[in-house]
């Protein structure tokens, strides 16, 4: 089997270095050549490795390249190694493939941005960091990749650093991600303390954690703590409750960044980590239940917020959080390959939705408010059709990609419920089903708001008669012409739309016949071979789950059509429930009041009391005391020579007396 992971890692790094060092001096054509070349070569090498893997028998599909030894301490070793197995191969294909499409799209979107080279340099850096994350063969380098993608996210959210809000959002993302990094570090320390190794699996350089696990320790408190610390990291990176707040704010970054990092790849790192570390989670069933519950609550919570948002990117951001919740629900009921499957299809349709939203924003000169849109179906034809595909896919309408992956998670949930008959399992399935309806509703609300009805914005609706005017400055409201994006932006949209339609075909078709056609599950099987706890759905359960979910999706679409089918109309709504959702459950306000303000108060008080009264006051007291002492002592220095002589005499007499008395 050919394993070219090192090359996949190397080229984006080279691209980042070249662009970072010389980018400002290069012409745009060269910048694109380097950025696209780096990403394209990475994708090419990943594809070659992937197909070579398909040509090997399933048992021999794992290869662990140890490039060099990083740390040696006694018999503890950490090597820099690249793990290439079906799971990382899937992730590599998504990261480099979707990454390449978004690199191409960005050339159009960022065309007139002065930070063109900086943008592509960061993007290549992100690809490098993400490849490192998914191909590291031990926890240490996983942590390195984990931290670097956080850094890339920080840099790209704050890309327009002149905007105060963008900088604040970048800081928020970084701080919350660091809470997660902290969890990951604690987990790594605990793993090291317990097992003494950090490799995932046995490799040339020593034993691995997952190979050393003892099934007898299932349910052990330490296993639970390790699993929960790992999940803390996942929750921060994948924007799950209670650490989701950074993702909606991250929409301050350029839209291609939102598509690549905050929808398709980086935020799925948490889903990847749970799948990668599944042997640890399998030993902590309580942690898996917690994951499933948090995933479910997050899915519902984010979907309800998305219902009434007006900023189109924020709707998509909350829908990303909600879909990530689905992935964790799937993993929480041991169906890891379903989580990865949904990750894959979500990468297609969510990247598609973001890029299409980007095309809309591009066409409207930076406008992101739904109230200023509408009626764009005839002007942005390609965007309209591709956005429709993405909307149908995320709503779970058969036979699009989102349907198959979501259906697999839903039927797993129901299968789990029928297997263990716990109320909470049924409740989770119910939550997931309700969320399906909400998803369909808010996505179609968004769709109708952007494309249907009449145009409500202030931009001129056509090019006619405007030719003599100067080049319209596109960032000024009302001074632009609505135009379809150039082909460099629409071609990635079309490719992603095709993937969103057919992407589900790699999943399982249990509805038609159980276990006949399930390429992705079979492909991932060697990785998840040690999972025996998954409840398998019977034929009837599959059909019940599917019919109910499609029914709820159609219900959501119908409701959206009834309310917004003739075009979106914004009305002030005083309903307290609406206000609660519109203000995102006031989470930001509550956090501000509960955490931010007390800390600020503490800081200000500390500045006044601790620094002013205690520290400054203390040094002032010392100075005053010394001044008092010296004021007394200086009296002795009279300036009269005879006084000094007398003092010397007294001193001498005293010394002589001392020796005389002592003998």
């Amino acid at each position, binding site marked *: 089997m050919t394993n070219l992971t090192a090359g996949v890692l190397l080229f984006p790094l080279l691209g980042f270095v070249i662009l970072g060092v010389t980018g400002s001096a290069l012409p745009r054509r060269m910048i694109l050549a380097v950025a696209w070349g780096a990403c394209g070569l990475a994708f090419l090498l990943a594809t070659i490795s992937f197909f070579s893997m398909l040509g090997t028998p399933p048992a021999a599909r794992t290869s662990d390249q140890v490039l060099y030894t990083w740390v040696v301490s006694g018999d503890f070793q950490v090597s820099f190694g690249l793990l290439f197995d079906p799971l990382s191969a899937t992730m590599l294909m998504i990261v480099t493939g979707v990454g390449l499409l978004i690199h191409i799209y960005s050339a159009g979107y960022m065309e007139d941005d002065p930070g063109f080279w900086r943008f592509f340099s960061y993007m290549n850096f992100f690809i490098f960091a993400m490849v490192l994350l998914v191909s590291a063969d031990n926890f240490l380098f996983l942590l390195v990749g984990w931290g670097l993608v956080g850094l890339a996210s920080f840099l790209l959210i704050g890309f327009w650093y002149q905007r105060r809000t963008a900088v604040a959002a970048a800081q928020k993302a970084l701080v919350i991600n660091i809470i997660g990094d902290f969890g990951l570090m604690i987990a790594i320390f605990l793993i090291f303390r317990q097992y003494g190794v950090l490799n995932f699996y046995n490799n040339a350089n020593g034993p691995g954690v997952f190979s050393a696990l003892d099934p007898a320790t299932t349910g052990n408190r330490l296993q639970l703590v390790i699993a929960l610390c790992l999940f803390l990291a996942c929750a921060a990176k994948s924007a799950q409750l209670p650490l989701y707040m950074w993702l909606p704010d991250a929409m301050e970054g350029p839209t291609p960044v939102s598509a690549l990092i905050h929808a398709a790849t980086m935020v799925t790192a948490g889903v990847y980590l749970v799948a990668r570390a599944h042997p640890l989670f399998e030993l902590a069933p309580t942690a898996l239940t917690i994951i499933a519950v948090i995933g479910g609550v997050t899915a519902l919570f984010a979907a309800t917020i998305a219902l009434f948002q007006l900023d189109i990117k924020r709707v998509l951001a909350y829908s990303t959080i909600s879909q990530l919740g689905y992935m964790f629900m799937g993993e929480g009921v041991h169906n890891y390959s379903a989580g990865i499957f949904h990750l894959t299809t979500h990468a297609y349709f969510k990247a598609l939705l973001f890029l299409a939203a980007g095309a809309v924003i591009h066409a409207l000169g930076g406008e992101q408010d739904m109230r200023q849109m509408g009626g764009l179906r005839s002007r942005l034809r390609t965007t309209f059709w591709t956005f429709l595909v993405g909307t149908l896919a995320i709503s779970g309408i058969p036979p699009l990609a989102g349907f198959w992956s979501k259906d697999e998670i839903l039927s797993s949930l129901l299968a789990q419920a029928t297997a263990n008959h716990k109320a909470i399992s049924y409740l989770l399935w119910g939550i997931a089903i309700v969320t399906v309806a909400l998803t369909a509703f808010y996505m179609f609300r968004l769709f109708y708001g952007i494309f249907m009805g009449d145009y409500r914005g202030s931009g001129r609706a056509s090019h006619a008669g405007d030719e003599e005017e100067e080049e319209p400055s596109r960032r000024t409201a009302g001074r632009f012409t609505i135009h379809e994006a150039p082909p460099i932006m629409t071609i990635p949209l079309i490719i992603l739309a095709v993937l969103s339609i057919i992407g589900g075909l790699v999943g399982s078709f249990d509805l038609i016949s159980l276990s006949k056609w399930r390429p992705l599950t079979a492909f991932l099987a060697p990785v998840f071979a040690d999972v025996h706890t998954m409840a398998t759905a019977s034929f009837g359960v599959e059909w019940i789950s599917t019919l109910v979910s499609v029914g709820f999706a159609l219900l959501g679409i119908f409701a959206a059509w009834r309310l917004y089918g003739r075009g979106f109309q914004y009305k002030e709504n005083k309903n307290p429930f609406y206000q609660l959702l519109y203000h995102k459950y006031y989470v930001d306000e509550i956090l501000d009041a509960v955490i931010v303000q007390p800390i600020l108060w503490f800081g200000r008080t500390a500045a006044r009391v601790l620094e002013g009264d205690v520290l400054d006051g203390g040094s002032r007291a010392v100075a005053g005391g010394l001044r008092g002492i010296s004021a007394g*002592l*200086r*009296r*002795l*220095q*009279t*300036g*009269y*020579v*005879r006084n000094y*002589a*007398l003092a010397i*005499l007294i001193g001498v007499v005293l010394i002589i007396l001392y020796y005389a008395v002592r003998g």
Partner: protein
Amino acid sequence: MPLSAYLIVSAILFTVGVVGVLIRRNPLIIFMSIELMLNAVNLSFVAISSKLDSADGQMFVFIVLTVAAAEVVVGLAIIVSIFRTRRDIDVDDMNLLRG
């Protein structure tokens, strides 16, 4: 003559010198008192040296005489220059170097 006689004379001379330094205000007199103290010490040196049959004490006397001469030179120079600026050399008036 016994050694104690020399030492008693020496002690009296030294005390006279100390009292002179402490109570007189004319720097010339103070200098003379200091000389008196030094010479009182010299007297004890010579007396004890002769008693012990050793030349060490007399060696010290020469050194003390040299130091005393040098000290007087410097001291008188200072007094002369103070007298030139102030027309007065009372030590109790020279108290500017105080804390």
